[in-house]
């Protein structure tokens, strides 16, 4: 694993909200093709880590490098443009836009023609719009959403909405994909499908995936490496088998036995 190209490098990142130390000294390395998990009890700071990585918050201290570029404090759309895309724990689709338009919007960050070209409908802009549509349909087919392309996104069933969020994130051509509880609220069958999908995304597109998930079975099954957060601190990190038996992890999840 070590000889693969490192894409995301996080070191010594901390963030406080007032007196609350949400994340302390967080570190993580993600290489091309990695599939890693970030777990921890509720309130451990997992989503805060995602928000720090994607630029929703800037870290107080520490360093986040994406493909060698320092991205601390950049606005989210800039970070996305550099190749980091995410999904949201509480689904944030563009509800009144069609499924297709949700994915097409995500291609916007790669658009080369100007707004004036759009208004003038130059050949370049028309052809690029065609490219966008083709690419979006391709992704929808991959995610099995193609026959719902023209429905409003909010009219999709819950599981499809989660998949659409992943498809939308993929449409930005990310190097790193952050998935915030991609299987939340799904039944066991759907979870198996999502797990397969995440693996496929990683294998076919060769991107690095970092996911937050509460379903231990899912995380243990698909992740090669797991980082465990508790009270904003990394308490364990390593292969699933190692993490599962780490006493600190067991303590964080189950509490200490009274003796």
């Amino acid at each position: 694993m070590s000889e693969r190209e490192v894409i995301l490098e996080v070191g010594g990142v901390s963030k406080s909200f007032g007196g609350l130390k949400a994340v302390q000294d967080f570190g993580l390395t993600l290489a091309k093709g990695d599939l890693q998990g970030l777990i921890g009890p509720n309130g451990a700071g997992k989503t805060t880590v995602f928000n720090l990585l994607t630029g929703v918050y800037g870290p107080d201290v520490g360093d986040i490098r994406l493909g060698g570029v320092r991205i601390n404090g950049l606005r989210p759309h800039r970070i996305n443009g550099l190749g980091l895309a995410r999904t949201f724990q509480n689904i944030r689709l563009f509800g009144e836009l069609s499924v297709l338009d949700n994915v097409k919007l995500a291609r916007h960050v790669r658009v080369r023609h100007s707004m004036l070209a759009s208004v003038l409908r130059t050949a370049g802009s028309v052809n690029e719009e065609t490219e966008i549509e083709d690419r979006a349909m391709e992704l929808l087919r991959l995610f099995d959403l193609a026959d719902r392309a023209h429905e409003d996104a909010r009219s999709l069933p819950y599981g499809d909405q989660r998949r659409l969020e992943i498809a939308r994130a993929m449409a930005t051509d990310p190097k790193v994909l952050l998935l915030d509880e991609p299987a939340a609220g799904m039944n066991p069958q759907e979870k198996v499908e999502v797990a397969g999908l995440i693996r496929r995304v990683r294998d076919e597109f060769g991107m690095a995936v970092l996911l937050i998930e509460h379903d231990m079975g899912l995380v243990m099954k698909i992740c090669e490496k797991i980082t465990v957060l508790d009270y904003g601190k990394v308490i364990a990190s390593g292969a699933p088998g190692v993490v599962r038996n780490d006493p600190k992890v067991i303590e964080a999840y189950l509490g200490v036995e009274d003796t």
Partner: protein
Amino acid sequence: MERVGGLAAMVRSALPLLGVVGLAVLMQFGLKPLLGEGGSFYSKLLLDIGINAMLAVSLTMVNGFTGQFSIGHAAFMAVGAYTAAILTYYGSAYAVGGEVFADAGVQGGLVSTMLTERVREDGVAVAWVTRSDLLFAGALFAGGLVAAVCGWVVGLPSLRLKGDYLAIVTLGFGEVVRVLIQSQTADVLYTVEEIKEAPVVGVAQMFATRSEEWVAPLWLRAGGSLGFSGLPFYTSLFWVFLWCGLTMVVAYRIKNSTYGRAFLSIREDEIAAEAMGVNTTRYKVRAFVLAAFFAGVAGGLFAHTSGVQLNAGELGFVKSFDIIIMVVLGGLGSISGAALAAVIVTLLPEALRDPPSLLFPMGEGDGASFFPWSLIVLGVVGTAVWWRAERKVRAVLVLLVTVLAWEALRYGARKAQVDLSDYRNVMYALALILMMILRPRGLLGVGEVWDRRKPKVGTQPKVGTRPGATL
């Protein structure tokens, strides 16, 4: 993949624009003569419709596309109106020379006057386009540009403010503009002789004449609270529908492009839009700038309409609310909806002056003149409702009940010897309320008139909506 060549794209791009020019020419030289004697009232209504549609469609770019709630749109109109007015009023002295404004209306060519004949009554042949027309066209554009700069200034706070807070800022901006124009500009307008002497650049003059009596620069003599009178009546059906069509084409093309999706994504979920790579601040400002530009041009058109005395007092928040009503009534984000609502909001209060019967011809002065037209209007509305509505029978029943209730109201009013037109403002308001109850998401929702209905779940065609969409 299907690729489009440069020439083909150019032709396709130009066709709608040529269509707009064609429409404008048709309105001016085809429809206008048909209106015939006493047609100026209908012409004025058409001008109002066109200008209001421009305002509504431009505001749609802010309130509809990006979901920012701006309630100071009339201020951009005022800025554009006064900029254009100053340019044509004072500029004509330089561009055309002589005693211009007294008889300025006829200085314009055929495209800029309400005249429809090549030869005026006094036997003078009228050119199609004169220097005054070019001045007017330039003034409109300049008005748009100055308004766009204001749009940029107002767009800036929208980076930090949301919802009600932004609304307050735009409202405040609107009032500031109105008050500044009313209080800071001089009532007295320059005469032609004075213009030749007067400073074009006011600031330089202020420094040069520090010790002497202060001479107001041209742009500060704009009528003040009395209003800017004596403007040439250049605005014609041609200019209004040229710009109105242009506004709609631009809005439509933006909406149906990657930039339109970027605008809409901000309305839907700003955080997600930002996370998907949309520079939300940039596009919010762009929306304001674009909307302000077209509102500014609309203001310029309004200022030069015959029968209008330009006064900033009329371009305050009441006007802004009128525009918002159109946008909301049409459906937030719908371009054709905003235009349709502009038609309704302009015509309805006029129609209610002499409450028309929809089903029966009645005696003189009793809305009778509208009778044969009313059946056509009802037919069009009925067809549209049938075509668009999801629950067709219910929709048509509602329409039928509304029409019958209207006739019953008219009948009752006649029996009770009540003049319904006394209550026209009440009826207008009630009609708006009724429409919003029946169509809570606006007449057309976010869609357009020509959009096919969304297929029901499971019954829609398989993928590959475009023939070119292959892997």
